[in-house]
Structure formats: structure tokens, C-alpha cells
């Protein structure tokens, strides 16, 4: 239905020369660009439209300010040949030039221009929203027919528009959501993975497709997909997962198996910080545990190195037999390593005056993460494990 709406809209612009503006709003991965591309493709199939429509694609991430955006518009409208070798002196000149160009036209005679603003929300932050104001103003006045299509994922985009810009916007919003349920999700999964009919090696395609069908009925795979589905309905994440799995395929291993998928899902679900913990030395782990205890005792208040060191010293004194007593500079070094890995974070910017030992820090790991990581840590001394479980266990 959205396709229908947008298609009608654009068709009217091109055929009748009616000016319009619309926003396509939807969360990331909900197919905003896909929708637009689909409509555009459909449009260009119509001969009358194809010869009639000028498209200008802008992206908020590329055209970071109005000046750049204007240059880009000029370029895409092929107006620079009119300008010749004249360099655009100023932003003002440029704007005046373009407005002049667009003002020249009228509804019936000029070629309609389709402005597509990707990442629309970023255009909102341009100074005074000059570009948006002017685009919408053109779309609301008897000048060259334009259609402004904005793509954004922000639901509150309208509140970001300045009031006079908002007034000029036609308030046509197309909301996209991923409103499919799990069954459809499975179907998408199958479609994504299946080989198309035109695949050269037909027998392999058949085998492959049968395998995919088989996979989609497999319990573990379904569980795994369900899990992913629960986390996000974004189809891109599904694609990523399948990509990981498919990249395991080679000559000796021609078909995807459930274990492949499982592996891929495990990889994609990996906790990044916990991963880092696996690579730490025992001393560093000890420091983290000390910090965890400090967090427990002081209920999340920030700590400094000296406190951590004291905590560590307490542990060493009690269990000195199994741990080598490190010098303070060595511990400091380990602490700084943690700082570099961003497992610990200073609360304020490190200043020159403050001594490093007394800089207030916060731990960027949750208790659960620490415990999980510790379980998986190879060859961890039992004392340390016990200490981690409870700071009071040895008393």
C-alpha cells in the first residue's frame, strides 16, 4: 500500500506537474530505500515518466551543510554547463542561482525535479534549515514542480522542523515498520538463502534449495532464528548472519548445515567486552575483580587506582602463597592497559595536574560479564575465582 501511495504521488508529479513533499519514516532496516528504489524503478519503466523526470539524490551524511548540498544539486541538475567555467563565488550566489533556476519554471512546462533526501534528519540540523525551507517553499508555490522525498528513521522528525518549514511541509508521511511475524520471517529466510531459478548448475541449485527448505524446518535453526527475530526485526541482521554462514561453504562442504548457522549466530551474538577479558593476564583480571568488589561496596561510586591497588594488596596478603606480589609500578602498568582497552574509563578528562593514581575511574563491565568471562578464562587460579565470587570468602 505504501508502494501504491508513493507511486501515485510521484506519478502525479511527473505527469501532472504537481509539487509534493513526503517523508518516509521507519526504523533502520525497514526498507525505506528499498521502497523508494522499487517505486523509482517502476516509474522509469513508464516511458513518459522516464523522459520527464530529473532526480537529485542527496544524503545527509555526504551533504553535511547547505553549501555542499547546493553544489551537489547544481551538479546533478546539470546546470553547471550553463554556468560554464565560472566558479561559484559564494554560497549566497549559489543559492540565488539555484533559486532563480527553479523559479523560472512553471507547472506545465518545466521538467519536474525529484529531490531525494536520504538521512533527512541530518538536513534538519543545517543552519536555519535554509535548504529545506527553500525546497518546501518551491513545492508549495507555483514554480518548477518538485517533489521532495525525505528518508529518515527518526519518528520525531516533524518536531525537529522549524515552524515555518513545518508549515510548508505537506505532512505526508509514510510510516514503514517491520510488521511481519515469525512465519514470514522464516519465509524471508528461505527466500534469501534459496538460489534463483536461473542458476547455471541446475542440479546443484535443486539440492541447495532442498537443503534450505530442510534447514528452515529444522528445530535448532528455527530456535536460532527465533532468537534473532526476538532481538531484532531488522532484515540486515539476518542477512549478516546468513552471510557468515554461507561464507563457510566450500567445495568440500557444499551445503549449509544447522551447525554452520549456529556457529554464525554465536559469532554474531558475541559480547565484545567479555571477549576482551579473555585475553587479559591474571594480574589484570585480578585488578578487574578488585574493581568489581569496590563497585559492590561503594555501590557504583567511582574509584581510583590507589583504591584498586589497596584492594588488590588485601587479596595478595591473604593469599600470598599462590600469587606473586607485583610491584606497584607493574600494577600501574596493568591498570593503564585496562584503561587503553576501555574496560576502565576516567570520569573526567585526565588533566596534567591530577596524579594518575588518584584519577577517578569507572568500570565498564557488568558483574555478570565478569563472572561469565571468568568461567571461560583458561587456567584461572582457583583462588582468584573464589575471590571473584565473594570478596569475603576467605575470611
Amino acid at each position, binding site marked *: 500500500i505504501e508502494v501504491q501511495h508513493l507511486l501515485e504521488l510521484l506519478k502525479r508529479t511527473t*505527469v*501532472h*506537474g*504537481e*509539487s509534493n513533499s513526503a517523508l518516509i519514516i521507519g*526504523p*533502520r532496516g525497514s526498507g525505506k530505500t528499498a521502497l523508494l528504489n522499487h517505486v523509482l524503478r517502476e516509474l522509469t519503466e513508464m516511458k513518459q515518466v522516464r523522459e*520527464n523526470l*530529473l532526480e537529485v539524490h542527496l544524503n545527509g551524511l555526504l551533504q553535511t551543510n547547505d553549501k555542499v548540498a547546493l553544489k551537489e544539486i547544481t551538479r546533478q*541538475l546539470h546546470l553547471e554547463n*550553463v554556468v*560554464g567555467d*565560472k566558479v561559484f563565488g559564494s*554560497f*549566497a550566489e549559489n*543559492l*540565488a542561482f*539555484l*533559486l532563480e533556476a*527553479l523559479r*523560472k*519554471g512553471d507547472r506545465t*512546462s*518545466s*521538467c519536474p525535479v525529484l529531490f531525494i533526501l536520504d538521512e533527512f534528519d541530518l538536513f534538519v540540523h543545517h543552519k536555519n534549515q*535554509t535548504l529545506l525551507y*527553500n525546497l518546501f*517553499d518551491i513545492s*508549495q*508555490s*507555483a*514554480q*518548477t514542480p518538485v517533489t521532495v522525498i525525505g528518508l529518515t528513521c*527518526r*519518528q*520525531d522528525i516533524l518536531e525537529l522542523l522549524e*515552524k*515555518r518549514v513545518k*508549515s*510548508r511541509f*505537506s*505532512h*505526508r*508521511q509514510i*510510516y514503514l*515498520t517491520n*510488521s511481519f511475524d515469525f512465519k514470514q520471517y522464516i519465509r524471508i529466510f528461505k527466500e534469501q538463502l534459496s538460489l534463483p531459478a536461473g542458476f547455471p548448475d541446475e542440479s546443484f541449485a535443486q539440492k541447495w534449495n532442498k537443503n534450505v527448505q530442510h534447514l528452515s524446518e529444522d528445530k535448532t535453526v528455527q530456535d536460532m532464528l527465533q532468537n534473532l*527475530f*526476538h*532481538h*531484532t*526485526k531488522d532484515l540486515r541482521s539476518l542477512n549478516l548472519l546468513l552471510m557468515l554462514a554461507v561464507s563457510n561453504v566450500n567445495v568440500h562442504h557444499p551445503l549449509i548445515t544447522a551447525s554452520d548457522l549456529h556457529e554464525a549466530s554465536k559469532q554474531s*551474538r558475541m559480547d*565484545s567486552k*567479555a571477549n576482551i577479558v579473555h585475553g587479559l593476564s591474571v594480574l589484570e583480571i585480578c585488578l578487574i575483580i578488585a574493581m568489581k568488589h569496590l563497585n559492590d561496596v561503594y555501590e*557504583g561510586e567511582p574509584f581510583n587506582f590507589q583504591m584498586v591497588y589497596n584492594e588488590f594488596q588485601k587479596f595478595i596478603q591473604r593469599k600470598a602463597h599462590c600469587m606473586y606480589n607485583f610491584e606497584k609500578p607493574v600494577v600501574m602498568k596493568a591498570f593503564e592497559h585496562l584503561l587503553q582497552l576501555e574496560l576502565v574509563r576516567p570520569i573526567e578528562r585526565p588533566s596534567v595536574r591530577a596524579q594518575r593514581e588518584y584519577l577517578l575511574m*569507572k568500570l*565498564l563491565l*557488568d558483574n555478570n*560479564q565478569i563472572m561469565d568471562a571468568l568461567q571461560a578464562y583458561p587456567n584461572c587460579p582457583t583462588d582468584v575465582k573464589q575471590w571473584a565470587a565473594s570478596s569475603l570468602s576467605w575470611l
Partner: protein
Amino acid sequence: MNTRQQSKVIYSWYGEPLSSDRKLRTSRYKGILITSERSRTETCIQLGNFILVEGENADQPFVAQLLDLYEDGGQQKHAVVQWFSHITEIPPNKRKLLKREVSPQEVFFDQVPGYDTDIAVETIIKSVMVIPLHLGEELPITLNKEQSFYVKQSWDGKCFKALSPDAFSKLKEANKKGGGISNSSNSFIPLDIISPLKKERESVVRSATKPKNVELEIESKHSASKSSLAKERHSQRVANGMRTPTARKKLQLNSPTRSSKGRLLGCEVLELLDDDCDAIVPLEPSANKRKVKFTGILGSPPKMPCANDKSKSMFDTAEHWQTFSDPIRLSPYSKVKDSSKKPKNLNREYDIICSIGHQELGSQSPVSTPRSRRICAQKTSALIAEQVSILNTLELNQEEDFLSSSDSSYSSSSEEEDNDVLCTPEKKTKSSRMLSTPKSSRKSSVHTPAKTLKKTPLPGTPKTPRNATPEIPRRNHEAQKPASILEEARLRLHVSAIPECLPCREEEFQDIYNFVESKLIDGTGGCMYISGVPGTGKTATVHEVIRCLQQAAENDDLPSFQFVEINGMKLTDPHQAYVQILELLTGQKVTATHAAVLLAKLFNTPGPKRKTTVLVVDELDLLWTRKQNVMYNLFDWPTQKHSKLIILAIANTMDLPERIMMNRVASRLGLTRMSFQPYTYKQLQQIISSRLNSMKAFEEDAIQLVSRKVAALSGDARRCLDICRRATEICEFASHKRTPEIVRMAHVTEAIDEMFSSPYINAIRNASLHEQIFLKAILAEFRRAGVEEATVQQVYHQHIALCRIEGMQSPTLSEIMAICSRLGACRLLLVESSNKYLHMRVRLNISQDDVMYALKE
């Protein structure tokens, strides 16, 4: 003008006061002497002469006839003038009354009552030539674009009339007199101070003798024009390119003595020539002058010097006229023996001119020269008469040619290069052609070096590449006409559709109209501040007012005015406002600071012929700067005595002057304010129905629903129209197969829902399970902590707890972060920048109740 700008100019009276009025302590003079220090030229302008007067735009001086000169009690020199309007000074909408092409040289005898005819003497630039012509007469040849004008009709602000015989004869008289004066004054008034070098050169020149057979040339031209004009023109163009250098070379060969003085430039020769022309002028004011001279030369002895100059300059001109200049080149030799003492006269005159400059030879037979010449001229006048007519036609052809070619160069930049080549030589022809007018001589002697030959691409010829008009390409297919009643309705409901009238804004319209009208009639300035929320028709009303005023001005109910509009949103920088105003007023393009200076000068000094300017400043609040100098200047100008500036400032907020303006700005803005109230539902209803204009596309109730809804929300007419438009689409979509129906309540309701529905709830409902759980966890955390803000860590714990209750696998922290940022991107959540990781603070962007409602299945 160039020189005037660069050097100091002294204005002094010429002669003794004619009469003086004791009471008023004024004294009248018969002429004024303009001395330019730098170029050391002195110019005398006498009563009756035509002058150029400095205008607001340096490129476009006014033309006037000097009627009176006096000095008032305060030693201020004044002049009373009769204005002539240039075509550009006539409002564009009136120009079409003329029903004919107007060449840039044409001026109109100005009878507009409003203009101040008393000007300061210092504004006089120089004298020019204005030639009266009958309506049917053709444009004379010898007119220099910049230095002489001709007048055919009078303009009294309303319509064009043919010159009354009285005025015509007066002008003619003045013209002759002017010519006569300047001519006779040659002998005793230092006309041109020609550098001493020139004298030497002259003697060199004298030795070279190449008179040219002008008669032959004219004859050949005659035949050529008869045979095929078009062909000739064509070939002449072709020839233009290469003809010039060869001709010049040839000339140099011809005058071996002068080759040593190779630096004698063509322009100097031209200078001589036009000085010489000066002398002959009185006989005929227009084209035939040169011919007079030439025919005179025909009988001149070969030893005479000026003939060569002339032939050379004539070459310059002639080669553009002629493709077959062979006869000309041959002719000098045959012509050598045709000699009389005429050139001697000319020669002597040169002496006079230059020597007078040096105050050396002032006593040399001043009277005889013109007289003898006149006799000569009279003899040949009969001959001339017929040739002139031929020439004229030819000239006109050429002129048209030139015009058309320059036109085309304007229209298309692609052709521009070729045209450039073609245009410039022709242009040159023109400029050299004009030299014969007596007034122009003075100027050209100053100007020619810069203009005639060295700088072939004359300023003002092809400006094309700079003001190339950008244009969106035309569409390939015609726009379809609306087919059904719904489509028609949609077209009318589009905001861009211009309604016939503006309903519900009659009062405001009347107020603004009265304000501007009264100011226009008084010829004073003033400001008005108009405020109102967006979509209440402020700009539309103002435009309507301006349209009505323009209409009234056209019907002569009101003095005409200039209308300028700027929009704060369409400026990149507040200071660009100056640039834009200046460009709209005068067409100049300068930098912001310079524009500010120019505008200040424009509005602060009394302009003799300035019209009232109506300036509409839309989105005024964007012109705010820290020092507010833009706003200050804008509102300061109308308070100036001579500004004649009316400002209509439009902005959204009613209290803008109090809120953001400094006191001194706000006080200048004045108290004339108007605020546009948001439309009530009845007004909106009226607007829609007036737009639909008794088309049966909407149900009565449907319109009412829309207007009530919009009035309750904002009173924005744009919104209202958009909803209606959307409703027609929905209706069309719904009744796809059936017969077209009218828009009913259901459609309107759907459209309203679509536009005003909050997207959040739908977004939450369609979020993934964990995202929903995350939101639940946030709510739980809020409830626990009692604060509407939580860190991710806290929410994470809640989340895990919730997952345990639901019996689900709990996500890792990385996944939680991903969920959090996704929700943040949709702005369901407000999140801090993500570098704080666990300690990132999270807040809901919607009310908790909404979340609860959405999550409760």
C-alpha cells in the same frame, strides 16, 4: 565617466552672471565650465545643451536638457533641467504601450510631473547630443550609443505621445544652437586640451596623404544594398575578421613618414577626426555630417594631412560596411589630384584646437573656418540627401543585425563565442561612426583611447556568460490536464494555486493597502511590521496588496513605485540582504559591504528622479545579527528624509521587536503593526469553498470537519489544504473502479488520521520482542528508582530479570547496547552519546503511559 570618477572635477561658471536676483540672492549664468584635473580637459556646457546627469546607477546616467543655471545664496550651484527618460526608466509594464522596438539610444521627452527638475551642478557628467526625430523617421547613423540620443516621443508617466511640434522645434533649435555654440566656441573656449605630443604627431600626419574616395564607397554601397543586403551583410561579417589587420597594415605602408611614429594610435586619429567633425556639425545634426565632410574633402589638395587620418579611420569604419573595399583602396591614388583648400581649413582647425589648449595660437583665424566649411557643405547637401537615405537603410540593417546577433548571444551561451567575434567589430563600427556629433567629440577625445580600438570587446557587449539564466530543462511531454473532478479539485487545492481572491483577510488587506497607498501618495517612507503564525496568509496578503497597488499605479491612480522583495530564509547570511536589495533595485552585483554603502548612499541622498521603493522583508527574524546592523539599517532608511522607502516586514512572532531587537532598532521600526490571527474554522471553511469554487468535489460536512480539526490545532491554512488534497487522493484510491464520487467524511477522517496520528505507538507495537522487553525494563527501572532516567547498566539488570520471568535466553550486553541504540535512532529513547557504554543514561521520549498502552496487547 571613468575619468570623472578617478579625478577631481571642478565646476565653475562660464561667463558673467546673466542676471541676478538680489532678493533671492541668486544669479544666473549662461554656461558652466567643467574642468577635470586629471585629464586636463575643460568642458563648457551652456544653456540649452543636453547633458548626462549622474544617476543612482553609475552605468545609467540620466539624460536632460539644461534649462537654467543659477547660484543660490549659499554658493550652491544649481541647474534646472528638462528630463529625458531612458527606456529603462520607464516601468516595464508601460513599455509595451510603445508597440515598437526601442533602441538603447532612444530617450523620451519626459513630462512626468513628479520629478525634481532642480539638480546640483555637480551631478552633471558631461554634455551629450539629443536629436529630435519625427516618429516615422529612422534612426540616424552617426549616433554614438553613449554620447548621443534621439528623441521621438514624450512620456508623461502614463502614455507616450509624439513630440508636440512646439517641443520638437524647440529641441531642434536647442540642438542646433548647442552645436553652433560648441562649434563657434571652438575658437575661443578651450574645448579639448590635447597633449603637446599631438601637435608633433599632427605634423607627421600632415605629410601622409591618402584621401579616400568616399563617393565611390558610397556608390558601391548603394549598389550593394540594392543587389542583396543580406548577402552583403553575410559576407561583410566574414570579411570582418581578417579585413581589419590588412587594412591597417596597408595604411601604415601608405604613410611611410609616420611609420617611425608607430605609436600613433588609431584612436588618436579618431580623435583628430572627430575634432574635425566638430566643426562641420552645425549644418546637419545627424548622419549626413560625415558625408558633408567627405564631399568637402573630395575637392581637397592631396598634400593635406587630415585626409589620411580620415581615410584611416574611415577604413576602420568602412571595412565593416564593405566587403569589397578594393575600389576604396584603389581610389586614393585617383583621388589625389582632387584637391581644394578645404583640408587646409580642417588642418587649421586642428591647430586651433590643440593650440588653444596650450593658449598659444588662440588668435588664429577662428571665424573663417566654420564659415567656409558651411559653404562647402551647402554645396554638397543635395548630393548627400539621397545618399543619406541609402546609408540610413544600410545602417539600420546593420544595426538590426547587430542587435539580433547580440540578442542571440544573450539567449544562448553556446553561440556566444561566434557572436563575440561577430559582434565586436560591428560594435567598433558603431563607435567610430558616432564621432561626428559635436558633443560627443569632447567625450570621445577623453574616452577613445580606452575604447575604440584597444578594447575591442566593449564593456557592455556580451555579458552573456555572467548572467546566464539558469533553467531547468523543459519537460519532454506536456503536462496532462486534470481529467476528473477530483483531480481538478486537487489542483485547485494545491497551496501553490493562486486564488482569485483572498477570503477572510479583507481587513488586513485594506489596512496594509491604505498604509502603503498613503505613503506612496505622500512620497514618504515608513515601516510596517506584520506578524502571525505560519500559514495565516501574511505573505499572500502582502503580495496581493502589491499587485493591487501595481495595478493602480498602472492606471495612474497612484505614483508608480519599485517593488523589491527579500526573504530572510533565502539569504545565506543576513548581510546578503544588501546585495539582494541592490541587485533588485539597480541590477548591480557587488559585495555585501559595498552594497550596504551604495544603498545607504542611495537612500540618504536626495535623488532627483527616484521612485518610491516598496520593500517586503519576509522572515525578518532571520536578519538578526549580533549587532543588528542589518535590521538597524533597514529600518533607519525609511526615516531618512529622501529615502522614499516603504518597508513591510513580515515575521512569525508578534513580540519580535521587543524580544530580539535592540531599543534603537525597535524604535525605528515604529508602531505600525499588524498581526494575523490564526484562521478560525469558519474562515478555513470559506477558504476551501472559495478555492473549490462551487465544484462538487467535497461534502459540506467533510469540509467542516477538516476546518474544525485544523483550526483547533493550528489554524494553518496550508495544513487544511493539504489534508483536503490527501482526502481527494484517498477518495480516488478507494473508488478506483466505481464511478467518481465526491469526498466524504470517511476519506477526510482517514486523511486527518494519517497526518496527525502519532507514529510512536505503532512503532512500539512493531518492534521486536527484546526491544519491547527493553522498554518494559526501562519502565520497571523508572518505577524502582523513581527517577525518569536510568543508566544502561541498571536497565540491563532489569532486562535480565524480565527475561528470566519470561523464561527466555537473556541477551548479552552487546546486544542490549544494539537494541538501545536502535531505539535511540528512532527517538523512542533519548540516549547519551554512546562512548559511556554502560553508564550511558537513557530516557523515554514518549510518556510512560503511551509505552504501557502500546505494550499491553
